[in-house]
């Protein structure tokens, strides 16, 4: 097949602006949002596009994030394409409606600028906000840089609205490190993005009258969404949500690949992004922008002959267990880096799931957890080097002394 690489323009954008630009090009019908640092720029830029008549979008100013998502959910239920953005306390305030949105199978797309949760109040990056919502039935994609934020938001509309999926989708970018840092971002021409996202496809479903009708709120073909659902049917509807999640990985990969053919940019297979893992003995696993720093460390170690690698998880929901197993089964010592913590738990959330995934691997790699970077605490190369040094020790001794550790915190 002939590769078609579209002509792209390089723009100086920070992560938030890259998201706003992607939304501008994606033919979105409704945006309802409430500002919160460090996500504010997304909505500010987008409101400028609305004001200047550059987009044909209904922009709803609301009084809270709870209302923002409720408005998006309601708009999405009528068959429109909708977008919102939040983070930290704003995302926490949406908590109830996150479940309603996924339960109503409303394919809302949301950008989350990952910020710590209060108290004490902090506006900087960690993943506590979105990790707390990992069970809400949303697809979660974590990005490494602003370019990927732009690319992922465009892909997110296709993923969320795919008739086989119909799950709301969050795209996560790290506060300040990405949201407020200028990068050169390659953007596609408007018409190519428009063609890629297309118009929202509405599947047909059987209504209460036995008639096939479009799956949306439509006075011509009335349906009832989200009614009372007790012990007799609730479980079946939740089982359907899991089924959609199980179908999502294949579609995420396909959509990522289709996009890659247009742009020439790919992030691993769309679910996981392995770096120099093929023959690695030791590896770290992380989400988001930390991967950029870790890649540099891997290169430095490789130059010295250390067989080091890195695995960045791009999709966290659905959790790409099979893909992780495939790339990690021959790695002997693994450090899982968590930028959030579940207080009182045996390590951070990424550690839980990676370690659990690798339980069935017969080679039984040694696994250690590092909780790092809470509240925006920097994760410099020196600390990542420390982690790889510890992994080399584990490789020699075949023993993990302390499975859960906190790094970068003063004693």
């Amino acid at each position, binding site marked *: 097949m002939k590769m078609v690489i579209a002509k792209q323009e390089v723009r100086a954008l920070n992560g938030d602006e890259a998201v706003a630009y992607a939304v501008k090009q994606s033919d979105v019908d409704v945006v309802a949002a409430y500002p919160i640092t460090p996500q504010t720029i997304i909505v500010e830029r987008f409101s400028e596009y609305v004001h200047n008549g550059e987009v044909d979008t209904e922009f709803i100013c609301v009084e809270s994030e709870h209302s923002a998502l409720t408005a998006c959910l309601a708009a999405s239920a009528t068959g429109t394409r909708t977008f919102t953005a939040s983070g930290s306390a704003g995302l926490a305030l949406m908590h109830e409606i996150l479940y309603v949105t996924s339960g109503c199978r409303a394919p809302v797309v949301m950008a989350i600028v990952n910020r710590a949760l209060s108290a004490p109040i902090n506006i900087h990056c960690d993943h506590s906000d979105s990790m707390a919502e990992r069970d809400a039935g949303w697809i979660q994609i974590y990005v490494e840089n602003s370019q990927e934020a732009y690319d992922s938001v465009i892909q997110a509309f296709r993923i969320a609205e795919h008739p086989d999926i119909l799950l709301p989708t969050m795209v996560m970018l790290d506060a300040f490190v990405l949201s407020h840092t200028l990068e050169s971002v390659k953007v596609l021409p408007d018409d190519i993005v428009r063609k890629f996202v297309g118009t929202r496809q509405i599947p047909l*479903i059987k209504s209460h009258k036995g008639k096939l009708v479009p799956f949306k709120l439509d006075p011509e073909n009335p349906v009832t969404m989200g009614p009372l659902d007790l012990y007799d049917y609730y479980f079946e509807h939740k089982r359907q949500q899991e089924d959609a999640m199980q179908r999502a990985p294949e579609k995420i990969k396909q959509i990522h690949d289709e996009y890659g053919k247009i742009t020439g940019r790919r992030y691993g297979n769309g679910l996981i992004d392995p770096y120099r893992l093929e023959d690695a003995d030791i590896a770290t696993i992380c989400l988001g922008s930390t991967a950029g720093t870790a890649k540099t460390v891997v290169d430095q170690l490789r130059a010295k002959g250390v067989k080091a690698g890195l695995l960045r998880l791009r999709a966290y929901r659905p959790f790409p267990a099979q893909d992780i197993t495939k790339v990690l089964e021959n790695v002997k010592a693994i450090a899982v880096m968590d930028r959030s913590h579940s207080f009182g738990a045996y390590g951070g959330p990424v550690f839980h799931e990676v370690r659990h995934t690798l339980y069935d691997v017969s080679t039984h790699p040694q696994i250690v957890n590092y909780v790092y970077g809470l509240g925006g605490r920097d994760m410099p190369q020196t600390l990542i080097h420390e982690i790889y040094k510890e992994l080399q020790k584990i490789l020699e001794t075949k023993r993990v002394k302390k499975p859960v550790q906190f790094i970068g915190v003063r004693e």
Partner: protein
Amino acid sequence: MTTKQKGWKELPIAGLCWKPSTEYFTGDWRTYKPTLDEEKCTKCLICYINCPDTAIKWKPEDEKIEFDYNFCKGCGICANECPQEAIKMVLE
């Protein structure tokens, strides 16, 4: 149950109603069932007025009241209010 329950593969998604509410027989919830002693009934219609589910039908042409067991939830208000004690609640 009055109708066969569908599995997750057959149901429309998002909790969408798959049948009209008039076909959702709330009589399924009942534990005690009202029964009428026609000898004692004076057709005063106090039960008919008090039924919260309009599950008591008054048929003037037959001069008879009838329970609609598809929708009677078995609350027992009719039996409690009947001045003639013509309605008895019976365990199903």
